[in-house]
């Protein structure tokens, strides 16, 4: 660890933390995929209700995406706002 200044260490660890925060993207990916799959199945069963199904699906997907976005916002804060400087 010799030769690394405190500042560089904090910056480097912030970058690592930002990368780790984006692991949060896994959950929404799986969830949105499941929602889209069930949406497709529902349209297949009842093609007449396509617009209703689509809007419900998009709403659910957007809510499922929130946790992923928390991770993204955390990463952005770590990278650019630099709270630990």
């Amino acid at each position, binding site marked *: 660890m*010799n030769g*690394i200044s405190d500042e560089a260490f904090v910056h480097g660890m912030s970058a690592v933390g930002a990368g780790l925060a984006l692991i949060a993207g896994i959950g929404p990916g799986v969830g949105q995929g499941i929602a889209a799959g069930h949406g497709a199945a529902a349209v297949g069963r009842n093609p007449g209700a396509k617009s209703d199904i689509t809007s419900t699906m998009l709403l659910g997907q957007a809510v499922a995406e929130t946790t992923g*976005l928390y991770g993204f916002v955390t990463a*952005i804060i770590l990278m650019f706002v630099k709270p630990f400087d």
Partner: protein
Amino acid sequence: MGSGVLDTARSLPLILASSETEYDFMIKKLMEIHIGDTTVYLTTTHVALICVSIFLIVFALIANRVLLKADPDATPGMFQNFLEIITDMLGGMVDGLMGTNAKRFVNYISSIFLFILICNLGGLFGLRAPTADYGVTLPLALFTFVLIHYNGIKKKKGKHFLALFEPIPLFFPINLISEVATPLSLSIRLFGNVMSGTVLMGLVYAMFPLFIQIVPIPGIMHIYFDVFSGAIQTYVFCMLTMVYINDKISD
């Protein structure tokens, strides 16, 4: 050890163009204004917001003029058709979710829908999308928060607060957190989506000279991040606002 790695990274021609200069996707200060001891900055967000507001006001004035002069017997023109499609779609959206209460909220929901939509599309016109600033999305979500509780109290009086103690009083802290989390998650959802698009577009433009020779990737990404994602998030914001309000005033 550390500095050697950093030097190598700097000489790499990858994240390259932007690593020396300021990141292109951050909010930039344009002007300082001193009020007493505090310094207020005029940023790119303000300029973009003013552009969006002027566009919407001019559009509304022209639309008003056109509709007032419209002849009921004549064939409607292109612009009038366009206006009627917009009004019809927004009215149908609010009506489908709120039913009998739609009349009271259709104006507000339509306004924020158009505002957020134009803000999100701002990235296409060279503005930095104003909704990629948390200072813009938080007030929008706080409007929703105030509307939710104003309408809840108006409808159910004191019983509005009793809902915090359901199903048993032990759940009070959890219910309180979920109420406070509503504006937070609304604003972060909009901010995060638009911001991620802005960041990715900024990174793509940072390596633009390399990329433009291969395929027109920035154009395709603009379609996805600005048009598709922007429209979806606008829709979701308005839908969730309506769902939350409807939750409190219907029974």
